[in-house]
Structure formats: structure tokens, C-alpha cells
């Protein structure tokens, strides 16, 4: 799916938990997430803390979209 979006000419960031799968399916900008059943959250935390995590990850995703890449790149920070 990520490839088809990229192919259509739109930059795309893939936020997913299992980076190797993302590499396999051909994502170019990758942001690793928390866990499979809750990639952008963590039920062990309070709602505020969860939202903070989500903000951090999405800020990272925006940064990835603003970064020129020439090959598959994982944005850990």
C-alpha cells in the first residue's frame, strides 16, 4: 500500500511497529511505533501520557516528511 501511494507521487511516512515488515513492503520513510495492538498509544499509561507519546511520534513523522531521503530510512529520533 505504502508503495502505491509513493508511486502516485505523494511523500508518505509509514508508522508501524515492525520495522522489518515496513522495509519489506518498501516504505521509504519509517517511524517505529509502540506495539502492534496500539501503535500510537500505550494503555498502561494515563490518557495525558499517551497523548504525549502520540504527539512525539507524530512530530517525528512530520519531521520525516520534511527530510529528503534517497533510500529507506528509519527515523528513530
Amino acid at each position: 500500500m505504502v508503495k502505491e501511494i509513493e508511486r502516485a507521487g505523494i511523500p508518505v511516512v509509514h508508522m508501524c511497529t515492525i520495522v522489518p515488515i515496513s522495509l519489506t513492503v518498501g516504505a521509504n520513510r519509517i517511524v517505529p511505533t509502540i506495539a502492534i495492538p496500539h501503535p500510537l498509544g500505550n494503555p498502561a499509561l494515563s490518557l495525558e501520557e499517551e497523548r504525549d507519546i502520540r504527539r512525539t511520534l507524530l512530530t517525528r513523522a512530520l519531521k520525516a516528511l520534511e527530510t529528503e531521503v534517497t533510500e529507506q530510512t528509519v527515523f528513530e529520533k
Partner: protein
Amino acid sequence: MIITNNELVYSKYKDDYDILFLDGTYRDVLVKTRDKVHEGYELLTHPLSSSIKPNETPYKSVIISDIKGNLNYNSVIIIENSIMTFDKFNLNKIKNINEKMKEDFKLIDLTVLKSALNI
């Protein structure tokens, strides 16, 4: 930890191992295993152990780690591919089996599991 829907496995190992017994189908065992793997448990036996097709036997036992760690990539791939493979099969066949066969399938599942536990 053993995840199983096979009473024979449960009764044999309930005192020696941590067992999650499910009163459900082969697929229920795979799905529970998947959820555990997603939580960070590691898969120790292959979920499609034995070449008996998922539409032949109603029983399945899988061993996962006792300890939860970081998400194990290989475990995720294997369990998700196993569920996908399971879903390719037509399950009508299972309806035809009788009590004797159920006992046989329980035994086969037990011996396949045993081949892993003995090591």
C-alpha cells in the same frame, strides 16, 4: 507457557507447565498465540507443527516463552503467516470426525508437542 485446546495436553502437563487452556478451536489457539506474541512473548514452537492440515485436526498446542520481552519479529511473521495459511483451508472436513478420531488427534498433538518438550 503452553497454549492449547487439547484436554489431553492440559491434563498431562498442568502440574509441570504454565498452561493456558482454551475451550475453543484450532484457530482460537492461533489467535490467542498471536495476541501474546504481539504483547512481546516469543514463539517457541511452530504453530503449524505437524503436517496435519488445519482442516483435519481440531487440536493445537503451541509453546511460547514464559517471559515477556521486546516484540520478536520472527515470532510475529511466523504466527501471522500461520493464521493466513490456516484461513486458506476449507473447514468442512472437521465436521465429519468422530470421537475415536478426536482422541487420535489429541494424541498426535500431544506427541508432536512432546517432541519439543523433551529437548
